[in-house]
């Protein structure tokens, strides 16, 4: 987190480029005409209010939903992802907001689900070792990887989901609120990890409601509002600007508080004079 100057101009090639992506569920337009670019070695934060369409956008990129209109270009090639395995094969790994884990399977089975080693005679030992390596990288606090997901806490499950996304050495990682349920140490570890994968040249899209986390790791902040693009910011943008873009209102309690503090500051400065 040293070279802030550097981070404004992503040098890497374009990993992902969306043009005019729309998605409607029946009468509801969840996404309208979304444009988004992600470069290699860049962290793009996706922010917006509840229901702004962030998860829908991520699911569209993960092949869970198919867009109603628009084009997705991945590493220079236009792609259509008909199902999640297509996205996985391209090198797009996703941590979903609802995690999408199988509660009846244990941690190892979940991490390797669909990508088991030696399909005809599962290599449990190798899979367990790899799982521990991934989990330790995330400072996971998981007592055993041989217990079903059902017996893990929310944060532990989230760590498992993140570990799973790292298994395949993807080109692009989509993290839908990856730190929502995490403790202090684990959040720091995930943010560290995001920086590490960025430094390895991966593209990262991170959704978060925590502006502190967003500012800490994001190179660019893309705001969605009611399913539309509502501005692109850099981490040095003020809270007021961000909140304004997210809520669409210039006047709300956050901006008011900010203004009050500003005014008080000026007042006290004025008093000192």
């Amino acid at each position, binding site marked *: 987190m040293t070279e802030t100057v550097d981070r404004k101009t992503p040098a890497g090639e374009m990993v992902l480029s969306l043009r005019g992506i729309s998605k409607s569920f029946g009468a509801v337009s969840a996404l309208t005409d979304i444009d988004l670019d992600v470069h290699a070695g860049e962290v793009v934060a996706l922010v917006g209010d509840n229901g702004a369409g962030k998860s829908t956008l991520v699911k569209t990129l993960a092949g869970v939903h198919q867009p109603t209109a628009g084009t997705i270009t991945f590493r220079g090639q236009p792609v259509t992802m008909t199902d999640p*395995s297509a996205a996985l094969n391209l090198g797009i790994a996703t941590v979903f907001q609802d995690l999408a884990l199988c509660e009846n399977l244990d941690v190892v089975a979940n991490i390797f689900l669909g990508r088991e080693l030696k399909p005809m005679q599962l290599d449990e030992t190798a899979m*367990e070792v790899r799982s521990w390596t991934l989990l330790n990288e995330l*400072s996971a606090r998981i007592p055993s990887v041989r217990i079903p997901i059902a017996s893990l806490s929310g944060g532990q499950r989230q760590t498992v989901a993140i570990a799973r996304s790292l298994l395949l050495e993807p080109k692009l990682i989509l993290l839908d609120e990856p730190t929502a349920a995490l403790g202090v140490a684990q959040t720091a570890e995930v943010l560290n990890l995001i920086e590490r994968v960025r430094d390895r040249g991966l593209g990262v899209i991170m959704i978060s409601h925590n502006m502190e986390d967003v500012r800490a790791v994001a190179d660019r902040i893309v705001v969605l509002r009611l399913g539309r693009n509502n501005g692109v910011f850099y981490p040095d943008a003020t809270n007021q600007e961000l909140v304004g873009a997210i809520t669409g209102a210039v006047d709300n309690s956050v901006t008011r508080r900010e203004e009050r503090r500003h005014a008080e500051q000026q007042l006290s400065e004025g008093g000192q004079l």
Partner: protein
Amino acid sequence: MTGNVNDNALPAVMLDRSDERLKHEAGIGGAVRGFIDRVRSGDLGSLPVVVGLVLIWTVFASLNPIFLSSNNLVNLLFDCSTVGVIALGIVCVLMVGEIDLSVGSISGFASAIVGTLWVNQGWPVALAILAAVAVGGLIGSLYALLYNRLGMPSFVATLSGLLAVLGMQLYILGSTGSINLPYGSAMVNFGQMLVMPRLLAHVLAVVPGVVMLATGIRTISRRREANLSAPSLGSIVLRAVATTLVLEIIVLYLNQDRGIPWMFGLFVGLVMLMNYALTRTQWGRSMTAVGGNREAARRAGINVRRIYASAFVLCSMLAALGGVLSASRLASASQQAGTGDVNLNAIAAAVIGGTSLFGGRGNAYSALLGIIVIQSIANGLTLLDLSSSLRYMITGGVLAIAVIVDSLARRSRVSHGRA
């Protein structure tokens, strides 16, 4: 990594034993305590059915000593094999949280096909059997098509299949009504009297123990190498020896009469094959995942439709094979074959054996254990000269108990975090 306390701790700590909250149970005592813990939290496995079986056998043996005679038990094994193979298919569809209500009809249709092609049309028997099993597979793929492409619930699709396939069975038997299979032919002998040579049975009974021991030792050395905790050699030896001992005693006892039926050998072989496929292959893992959380499995890149298709096709093929076996057992292919309680017995066997109706939990051995329970009840009541009305009532009661145990265990697992 962050320089936390763990880094200064013992360097030799095993990968999976670094969390101090985890109780470390070592050796045989630990294995036993672990088992008790699992049962308490609702992870019952095969325990209820084993307890139930002991109970049923004790009651019948005390009412009629003939029940436990080796002659009767050999008969029991012959009877188990036919519906048991069908139940094995049911385990497959239950694993993915679906059902096939038409297995009885498919088995009847398959026996009719064998009878018609072999006896009436003069096909070689092997080819007739193959054709019957292939037709089963075809019916299964039709169900898969209806389920995957049209979103038809398997309950409804297979219910209409039950009627339609029964209709086909009656249609091809039409003019004759029933076809007798020639006595003395290999197929009928297989279903009625072929047993393993005594020595071979004893040798085969050693195999599971040896395999257990070999894979156990291999696992221990591989896990030690990878710095993972490993089960103790003692507990593995104990399990292998106990298994071998139990199997040898069973073989010894049954060898006093005719011995182990080949048909039962085939059934157990299929059960073991299915057990391997479900627990040790990617396909089995995907089956469990799809049964547990279909959407999560899809998002993990599993081809969910193919998994459903494999379950339906396998179930129908095993149902057809079961039908062929019962035709050879009865030496006939009749309009009654596969009707009556075949359907429900097969489903009940899988559930009684411990495969959950809710999907994602179960194992191949539940078909074996469940069908032994059901056939024991039928056999015991027949020995007591009690009518089939009572048999239906008791089997129904046992099934209800099994489903109650399944539901309660599920609730207990949820509250103990072992879903």
